[in-house]
């Protein structure tokens, strides 16, 4: 029997077609991966199923019964639950309160005892183990996610949709999650798992449906597949999944961070040196000080304790403008917030950070001709898809925006490039491109600090790796001396490593 049947679903946003006649069939009691790149329409399709969006056309049947789903409430009454990328939890309330929120027992007052009993029965059944009285704000990200999943179960969901659930987890937490999902499948639940990662698709799912550019590609049995075939289906053409990395020949120290404290409460400090011609990777679970470290190096925030040195001089007290002048290039982790001017043209966006560079301005006036020539040469060199360089940057795709930022920051040969989450939200082609460009820069002798929460990216790209945990650098080694498991353990705090 099919738990979910979606036929010929079409959805447009303005002039963009998000989904064009997509079919989806999911059997009862299977783990089904919905695989596709960013913008393929996976989340849109599931948001339609969960009643957050309405399809322009097409029909849905749940357990072979045709339905119209207008709201999440309705989806819940059809026993569908969804765990979003951003958790919908009230941090100041306890786990118990969060689980029962909206489904409280009791007529006037909440009957906590009854709720607790119901929860404990379910906990036992699905092998969850919560401290029900802990505040959500005290939980780790993995625990919060488990609360979200359990919340769906508590509400009676038989079909559980998870939207890119592993993006925020350490490898160890991922395996806990997979164990839970396996468990739930064995108890008869149906799991829809949205992802763009091939390895976890292979590991977890019974079947896979691949979407590309809002279109249905194929539904296949996972056991008949290998990662290369899946990647080809996902991208539309053959892709090489290996990055070619040559030997590293580091030169003089470029960036030195000495005794830096990220949080005033951190126990550990950060001491690191990035040399010319090497990629230094900062691994760590999101929220352990990556953004603060980025800001301290860029200069939008000044460290209270510790120093930042660039090419042998202390820049801790320098303005951002001064650091740029000294040769700092930055690809910020939050592109929309920190790297682009959404209401301005592509040319204007190329000027950002270079507006005081004598090549593009003199006597306080912008040299439009030089700027436009530069923008054009970068657009050509980095194959940025634009219709005109006077277009608004917001009209470009995320990948092309990122290419623009990348070309702008490396175009004038910085002495140090800080690349924070440089491929977040990009499709495979763009990721591959950016990664190879980074390696090329390294081979040309540039120092690169790579900050990423993607373990595979860190492993693949870095020459040396340091792990950031609770604002401190708790371990540093050559990349080859780490195994994935070890790194994962350090990312979780280093216990037992």
């Amino acid at each position, binding site marked *: 029997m099919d738990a979910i049947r979606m036929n010929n679903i079409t959805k447009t946003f303005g002039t963009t077609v998000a989904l064009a006649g997509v079919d989806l069939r999911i059997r009862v009691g299977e783990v089904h991966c919905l695989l596709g790149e960013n913008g393929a329409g996976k989340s849109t399709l599931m948001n339609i199923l969960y009643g957050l969006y309405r399809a322009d056309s097409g029909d849905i049947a749940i357990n072979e019964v045709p339905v119209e789903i207008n709201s999440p409430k309705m989806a819940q009454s059809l026993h569908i639950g969804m765990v979003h990328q951003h958790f919908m939890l009230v941090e100041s309330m306890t786990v118990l309160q969060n689980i029962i929120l909206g489904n409280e027992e009791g007529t006037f007052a909440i009957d906590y005892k009854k709720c607790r009993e119901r929860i404990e029965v379910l906990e036992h059944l699905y092998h969850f183990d919560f401290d029900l009285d802990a505040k959500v704000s005290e939980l780790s990200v993995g625990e919060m996610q488990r609360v979200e999943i359990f919340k769906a179960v508590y509400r009676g969901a038989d079909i559980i949709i998870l939207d890119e659930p592993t993006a925020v987890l350490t490898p160890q937490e991922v395996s806990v999650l997979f164990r839970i999902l396996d468990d739930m499948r064995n108890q008869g639940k149906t799991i829809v798992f949205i992802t763009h990662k091939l390895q976890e698709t292979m590991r977890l799912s019974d079947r896979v449906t691949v979407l590309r550019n809002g279109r249905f590609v194929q539904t296949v049995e996972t056991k008949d597949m290998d990662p290369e075939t899946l990647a080809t289906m996902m991208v539309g053409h053959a892709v090489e999944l290996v990055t070619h990395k040559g030997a590293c020949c580091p030169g003089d120290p470029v960036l030195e961070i000495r005794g830096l404290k990220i949080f005033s409460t951190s126990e550990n400090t950060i001491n690191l040196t990035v040399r010319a011609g090497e990629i230094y990777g900062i691994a760590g679970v999101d929220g352990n000080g990556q953004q603060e470290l980025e800001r301290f190096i860029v200069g*939008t925030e000044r460290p209270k304790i510790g120093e930042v040195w660039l090419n042998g001089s202390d820049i801790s007290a320098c303005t951002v403008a001064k*650091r740029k002048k000294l040769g700092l290039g930055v690809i910020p982790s939050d592109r929309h*917030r920190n790297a682009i*001017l959404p209401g*301005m043209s592509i040319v204007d966006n190329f000027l*950002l*950070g270079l*507006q005081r560079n004598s090549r593009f301005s003199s006597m*306080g006036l*912008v040299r439009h001709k030089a700027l436009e020539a530069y923008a054009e040469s970068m657009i050509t060199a980095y194959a940025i898809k634009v219709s005109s360089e006077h277009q608004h940057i917001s009209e470009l795709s995320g990948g092309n925006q990122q290419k623009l930022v990348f070309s702008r920051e490396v175009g004038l040969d910085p002495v140090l490039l800080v690349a924070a989450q440089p491929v977040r939200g990009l499709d495979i082609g763009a990721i591959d491109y950016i990664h190879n460009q980074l390696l090329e820069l390294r081979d040309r002798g540039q120092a690169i600090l790579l900050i990423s929460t993607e373990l595979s990216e860190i492993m693949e790209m870095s020459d040396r790796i340091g792990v950031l945990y609770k604002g401190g650098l708790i371990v540093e080694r050559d990349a080859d001396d780490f195994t994935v498991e070890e790194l994962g353990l350090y990312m979780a705090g280093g216990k037992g490593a």
Partner: protein
Amino acid sequence: MKPKGTFNLFARRKDWESLWYSLLAIVFSFLLVALIMLAMGYNPINAYAALFRGSFGSVYAISLTLCRSVPLIFVGLAVGFALKGGMFNIGGEGQLYMGGFTSAVTALILPQGMPVFISLPLAILAGMVAGMVWGGAIGLIKAKLQINEVIVAIMLNYIAQLLTSFFVNKYFMAKGSMTPQTEILPAGMQLPNIVANSQLTTSLYIALFMGVVYWFVFRHTVFGYEVNALGNNPSAAGTGGVHTVRTTVLVMAFSGALASMAGIFEVFGTYGRFIDGFSPGIGFTGIAIAFIGQGKPLGIILAAILFGSLQAGAMQMSLMEGVSAHIDKVIQGLVIVFIATPNFIRYLLNRKTR
């Protein structure tokens, strides 16, 4: 830093689209007021004809319109400048009082023998510095203490108005005058009329010149680019090396200087003296003008002339057709409402095309 307090009303839409919205807002307002006049028993066609005669019907009418437009151009540019940098300068009223008063007093206390080509620019400059301080203070408080600029500006408006009133009444009152105003400025300090027997003076040229300066700053200067970047995405501007605190202060200071010129040239042009409480809310009207003009200098100048013509023609309309002269305020108000609700206009348009 959190990107708050950014006003992007005219940052995202395409140019022609913005222009179209402004025009439609004006047309809708006139149509709606025509309906009101009909309901009240007036003939709107006759009324609008009288309004037009009063604002553009003769050389005198045109000069009256332009005379009313000059301060509106200055404040419109002032608000537009601040909005480009992501700030809302509602303090134009205070800045123009400070500017007008400071320049008037400077003109009066400078030695009489001083050549006018020195004393006049000196007096004007003094007023602009006062406006810069009054505006820059708002920027400084916002940038350093993260206090919303709107609240600070409104407070400073009261302080400026009451402070100047106090000084005029207490120390600078013209002898024998019944109203609180300063002595008339020395004849050489008053700007010459463009049209004889009208209040329109050469301040019009200065206003238009400031429009050109405004255009140049945003089109060609690094500073203009940084202001634009700050208004567009303060966080990215900061990461791109824009000194956000300094730029915030400078934006408000220049905005304050522009607003102060509205007061200064009312003093040196229209009135020839500083009069207590002379502004009928010019600084606030500047907000509407900046929005109708979509932050573009030519748009601001045209919007200022439109509002100037409404003020100039309203009297004629009231005399000839008996329609209350306050109807111009209704039109102004409706234009603002329509401009502030682009979605409403979009809705009306879509209905028509459906």
